[in-house]
């Protein structure tokens, strides 16, 4: 199973998890990213490169499926204006081996952070905006997986 979706609307974590559990593997790992509030943040705006996003995420998923014995992968990434508490991204992996499920899930989210063509802009309650800067740490994490 390979499910990839880049979408504006929210998604159903339970449905994704259930689909992965139904694959008959021993374990399902997931990571869900949520917009953090605080510091007067009223929204996070996610811009994407539409012509590239879907294909690039598919390449990252194919990499993961080549590296680990996975029964299924589900990746959902939202774009558009998201308020604190909203889900941004979901990565779910299913495998007969729990380590494969957990490691590939970590790999995918690290890789999405530094290799998926999205840009985040913060909107604050005083009207100010700020583009989130890429963190060297994220790039290092992705590189840490090699490949």
């Amino acid at each position, binding site marked *: 199973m390979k499910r990839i979706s880049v979408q504006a609307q929210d998604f159903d974590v339970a449905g994704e998890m259930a689909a992965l559990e139904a694959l008959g593997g021993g374990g399902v790992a997931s990571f869900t990213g949520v917009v953090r509030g605080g510091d007067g943040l009223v929204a996070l705006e996610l811009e994407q*490169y539409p012509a590239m996003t879907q*294909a*690039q995420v598919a390449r990252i998923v194919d990499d993961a499926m080549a590296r680990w014995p996975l029964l299924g992968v589900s990746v959902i990434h939202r774009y558009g204006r998201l308020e604190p508490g909203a889900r941004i991204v979901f990565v779910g992996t299913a495998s007969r081996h729990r380590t494969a499920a957990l490691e590939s899930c970590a790999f995918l989210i690290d890789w999405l952070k*530094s290799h998926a063509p999205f840009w985040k802009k913060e909107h604050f309650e005083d009207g100010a905006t700020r583009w989130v800067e890429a963190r060297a740490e994220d790039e290092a994490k992705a590189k840490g997986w090699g490949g």
Partner: protein
Amino acid sequence: MTALTIVYFAWVREAIGRDEEQVDRPAAGARIADLVEMLAARGGGYAQALGDPARLRAAIDQRFAPLDTPIGEAREIALFPPVTGG
């Protein structure tokens, strides 16, 4: 020769004030960095967005590419800041 499409994202797009444009295809052998330099020379928002190539990343035909990549037969060059997805 066909024109080249340039697409901009995030603060590069905002500084330039447009998300896409067509430019004349640079001379054979030109690299993305040469295109960036040429565009920055227009001044104004272009200079602001593209004046410091170390802050930029690029893609050729929807695949990431270092700035020293030759443009070759590419149809679409994207210029943007480092990505912040996930």
